[in-house]
């Protein structure tokens, strides 16, 4: 299939209605779970869902728009748009090669997502924000600097730790959610084969039971 045709299929009307909801989930879930005071942000679960159901390009658009729209809430959010785009792309390609079909593969996807997110986020944090983002993790960065580490290494170490944990949990929750969707529902999306093709994939009835 040619790339332009692929894009046309990916951005179906169903995808176009899924993306805004995914954007809102990206933006709202973090606030919802903030009362649990867990060291995760869960700000890409919508992008990962789009990646599974509608492919990497739709997920990249979801990530980009999440951070642009989030700019209304926090003006520094758009600076991290490249991270959100890469997370969408990587999740989409992982889904394409079948990495959303078993819990351990999903964990691997999460690890990969965390690593690539940290790789993209570190230069932005260092160059634009001087290595500081005003959250609790800045204390760890200060500690690492005080013990003699360089700025880039300190920021990368902290970003990798927080991102890997966050993305593994994000990927696992997204996978659990997709398992609970009915086959009929998933088949309306352009990349349904990402999760449906496998014969021994649990049917909806089995998951409910």
């Amino acid at each position, binding site marked *: 299939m040619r790339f332009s045709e692929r894009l046309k299929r990916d951005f179906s009307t169903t995808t176009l209605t899924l993306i805004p909801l995914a954007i809102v989930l990206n933006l709202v879930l973090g606030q919802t779970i903030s009362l649990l005071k867990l060291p995760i942000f869960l700000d890409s679960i919508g992008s990962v869902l789009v990646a599974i159901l509608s492919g990497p390009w739709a997920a990249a658009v979801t990530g980009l728009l999440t951070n642009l729209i989030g700019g209304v809430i926090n003006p520094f959010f758009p600076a991290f748009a490249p991270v959100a785009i890469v997370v969408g792309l990587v999740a989409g390609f992982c889904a394409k090669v079948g990495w959303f079909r078993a819990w351990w593969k999903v964990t691997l996807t999460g690890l990969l997502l965390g690593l690539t997110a940290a790789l993209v986020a570190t230069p932005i944090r260092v160059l634009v924000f001087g290595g500081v983002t005003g959250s609790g993790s800045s204390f760890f960065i200060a500690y690492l600097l005080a013990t003699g580490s360089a700025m880039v290494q300190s920021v990368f170490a902290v970003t990798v730790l927080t991102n890997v944990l966050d993305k593994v949990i994000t990927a696992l929750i997204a996978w659990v959610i997709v398992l609970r969707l009915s086959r009929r529902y998933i088949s*309306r999306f352009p990349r349904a084969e990402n999760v449906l093709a496998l014969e021994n994939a649990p049917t909806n009835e089995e998951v409910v039971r």
Partner: protein
Amino acid sequence: MVDYGWATGIFLGVLLPWSAWLGVLRPVLQRVVWVIAPLALFLIPIHSFFHPGTTVLLTIGHFTLTQEGLAYAYLILSRLAVLASALLAFSLSTTPAELATTLTQQGVSPAFTYLLISPFQLIPEVRTKAATILAAQQARGMETAGNLWQRSRALVPLVVPLVLGALVDVEERAMALEARAFRAQGYKTSLVQIPDSVAQRWFRWGLFGFTVAFVGWSQWQFFTSRI
């Protein structure tokens, strides 16, 4: 020499007057302070003590506060003030509906404008749903306090119903859009017309040209200073 004056100059000389002209000076200033202050709290000590520098201003124990570090922290903060105030002035003075209409008039695809606009309408809806789910799960005895393990067990019952509920809406919305000929080709008229003068058009192209020239110039300065 790094451009210490540029960011401060643009912030004070361009962005603040522009916000005032748009009538959003107060909220812009408030929110710039609100987002910059927590960063400054970390940036200033971290860079004044750990940035490589030779001009020592103060020594506390093992740590030395250098002038170069303080200057670097100021540079980052002033740049962030430019970034924040420009975005805030734009977002506080433009409604999503105006933005959507303008983009469509400029020839941006209606599908893209839909993606940009509908989240604004959905956010309050999903927030209300989230509050309802939280209340319902707490009524069923879900723990939101306690140790890390107890708190993380609340994650799935909070997140999964919210996402599943939102996903169920997708089908309905897709059908509603199809029923309104969302994908139809052909000319569509708009109820609201945003006026766009020739002068404004030229001004936009001028700004674009200025940005390209400025980035090119600063890159050239950067690379020639390294040689």
